């Protein structure tokens, strides 16, 4: 579809796909709320830092015109954002099940809201394109 070539629309489509998959993972967690030995899973959130380091960056070294100059590191500092700390607040029941139903419900609500935001933005962008085409309403 040609619409997906519009960067914003394409990005929203990716986002909606991600949320759709996440909903599936969360549904699985909730369904297994009482299965012995089951651990809750989640999709890895999109890591901006990782994407940033994957992009080939133009790295320039500092010029050393005087022997007393310090040669700067040619690489950019990548450790500035710090690793997100894994939340270790899960509980394991005697049966080995580690699904916190409350937490899962929060995630389901969050996913639903995020999806709503994405679809709203999507229809807004479509409206924008319509306006650009000169169609009123």
């Amino acid at each position, binding site marked *: 579809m040609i619409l997906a070539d519009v960067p914003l629309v394409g990005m929203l489509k990716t986002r*909606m796909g991600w949320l759709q998959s996440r*909903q599936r993972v969360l549904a699985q967690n909730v*369904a297994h709320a009482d299965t012995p030995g089951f651990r809750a899973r989640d999709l890895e959130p999109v890591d901006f830092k990782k994407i940033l380091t994957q992009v080939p960056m133009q790295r320039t070294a500092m010029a050393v015109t005087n022997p007393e100059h310090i040669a700067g590191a040619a690489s950019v500092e990548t450790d500035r954002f710090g690793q997100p700390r894994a939340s270790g607040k899960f509980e394991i029941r005697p049966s080995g099940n580690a699904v916190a139903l409350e937490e899962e419900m929060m995630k389901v609500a969050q996913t639903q809201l995020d999806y709503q935001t994405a679809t709203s933005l999507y229809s807004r962008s479509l409206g924008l394109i319509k306006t650009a085409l000169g169609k009123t309403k």
Partner: protein
Amino acid sequence: MDFMKSLSIAASGLRTQAGRMRIIAENLANANSTAGASGGEPYRRKVPTFQAKFDRDLEAQVVTLGRVQRDKSSFISRYEPGHPAADGRGYVQYPNVNSLIETADLKEAQRSYEANLNVVSATRRMISRTLDLLRV
């Protein structure tokens, strides 16, 4: 569509919890069932088990009710010499069903059922948002 998969997974949870409730109801209903003949074994408590089963179509693990096990704990015996099911010493065996435990289990099953329903309604809202895009 992935949403349909989410719905199917939640439906498997609903089905399993409903089956669990059925077994609990069976236990509760038989809490006082004694043996027909004298000295026989009364109703033995049933224990539902859960199983994770990988569904190839859904690309996810659905939950199913496994084999129904029997609780191997000992029966409760009461001294009732006049009871038709009493053994030679006058004791009657009563089922190993504790209604307090069954009620607590029932509550838990109910909560899990509601959680699955919640997933279904959240997913349905997401689907209707998707369909709304057609009306732009």
